[in-house]
């Protein structure tokens, strides 16, 4: 069995796989943030809470209505997106024209509300959600063992991220979004309902977060805090990669997950901090971030 500095290859690949999984979530959440930031020019602090809601709604669908994972993948994002649309219409839209830091503060408040509510309703530290039957078990790849569900997570997140990129770059709807991002007044002068576009975009970004939450439910524990810790890391990912490009968000998210996984092999305690250290290095060397436009 191959070894690297006394660590068996299987352990390394195991950690890399875990890193790739984490990276999937970093990527999905960064893409969601980038989509929302691109059009609304606010950083959605509630993104972590909406991810957590996605996981909770899937749990609730199963626990109260007997609706399983595959339906949850479709329903949970829709349900959470509706909530997101309400938040945008009732709260966020009133901030247009103000400094975008107010948007950060507002969505922080929303995150606190969502998290606090769920912590009160479900005071246990975590709720179980089992891997769907079809995805249990795994494949023996020789150099490592790949659990089916984890492979599914990587494929699903990659698909969602690329689909988002395609929608934005290659479709008519995406053209409207890119135009609204650049010059919303002119787009309005063509008769396009820009506020509605903005609302739908926020809903879409939120749906992405909730989708990630459903994917997360069987592997990370469903708990009210699951989003809070993740969102801070995602912010660091976004500082490194910038919020200006979808591709940048995807590449940065997956890469950082891999790097984090690799670091865990050699230094398990420091691993959650690796990304912050990389952020510090990027700030020193290339302050504008790797892909994004300078703010």
């Amino acid at each position, binding site marked *: 069995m191959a070894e690297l500095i006394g660590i068996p290859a299987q352990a390394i690949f195991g950690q890399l796989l875990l890193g790739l999984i984490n990276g999937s979530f970093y990527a999905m959440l960064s893409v969601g943030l980038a989509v929302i930031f691109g059009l609304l020019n606010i950083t959605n602090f509630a993104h972590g809470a909406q991810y957590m809601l996605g996981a909770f709604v899937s749990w609730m669908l199963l626990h109260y209505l007997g609706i399983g994972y595959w339906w949850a993948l479709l329903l949970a994002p829709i349900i959470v997106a509706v909530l997101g649309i309400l938040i945008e219409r009732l709260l966020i839209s009133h901030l247009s024209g103000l400094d975008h830091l107010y948007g950060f503060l507002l969505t922080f408040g929303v995150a606190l509300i969502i998290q606090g509510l769920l912590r009160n309703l479900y005071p246990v530290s975590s709720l179980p959600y089992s891997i769907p039957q079809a995805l249990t078990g795994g494949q023996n790849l020789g150099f490592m063992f790949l659990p089916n569900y984890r492979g599914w997570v990587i494929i699903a997140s990659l698909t969602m991220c690329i689909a988002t990129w395609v929608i934005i770059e290659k479709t008519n709807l995406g*053209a409207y979004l890119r*135009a609204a991002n*650049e010059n919303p*007044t002119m787009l*309005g*002068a*063509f*008769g396009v309902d*820009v506020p509605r576009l903005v609302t739908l975009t926020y809903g879409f970004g939120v749906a992405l977060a909730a989708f990630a939450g459903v994917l997360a439910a069987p592997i990370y524990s469903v708990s009210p805090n699951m989003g809070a810790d993740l969102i801070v890391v995602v912010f660091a990912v976004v500082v490194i990669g910038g919020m200006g490009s979808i591709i940048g968000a995807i590449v940065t998210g997956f890469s950082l997950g891999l790097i984090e996984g690799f670091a865990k092999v050699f230094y398990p305690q420091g691993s959650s901090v690796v990304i912050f250290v990389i952020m510090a290095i990027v700030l020193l060397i290339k302050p504008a971030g790797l892909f994004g436009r300078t703010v």
Partner: protein
Amino acid sequence: MTDAAVAFNPLAGRPPLLNVADLEAWYGESHVLHGVAFDVRPGEVVTLLGRNGAGKTTTLRAIMGIIQKRRGSVRFRDLETIKAPTRVIARSGIALCPEERAIFSSLSVQENLMLPPTIAPGGLSLDRIFALFPNLKERLGTPGTKLSGGEQQMLAIARILRTGAKFLLLDEPTEGLAPVIVQQIGNAIAALKREGFTVLLVEQNFRFASSVADRHFVVEQGKVIDVIPNEQIGTSSAKLQAYLGV
């Protein structure tokens, strides 16, 4: 409007497509329009002439609803639009080609061209548009940023022709362009007029304006101070030179 102006205007009998009265507008605290008044008849090409800063672009933006702080009356097809949002005004059949052209740089020429939604039947077909502006057909895949000034201008005009809006607001379409392109744009405007479009043109170049327009309104310090039918442009050149400081 003077009686002389009315008498010489062959379209004088028809009700106006656009009637602007007592139009006032503010940029923040700054009072920019002080009671603009003029009208545009269906099928006419009308220009707003004036110096820089006279308020011509502001008038277009006020008509379009882009300037929110405005007062007075803007009646389009006999409907009051002074309080309407931009989106609604656009959908009632007015389209703007702004001075800065506002080509979306993150979109290709084709995407820019197809972007404005169809708001009414009767827009020009793509074939007709390419007949007016052949250069655009070759540059469809080019990103918006890589066009020359003339191509950008043509695209900015072309994209609003598709939508079915029959009343066009063109803000200084010939500014900074080579004579050959200016000619092309002049021909295009003449062709559009024949097809039944109504055009409100803002221009500083009154020679170009007189080659396409029926009437000219002179704007100074946020008010319309004179109207000159196109037939009288030749005899009014001294007056015009005084107005425009040329």
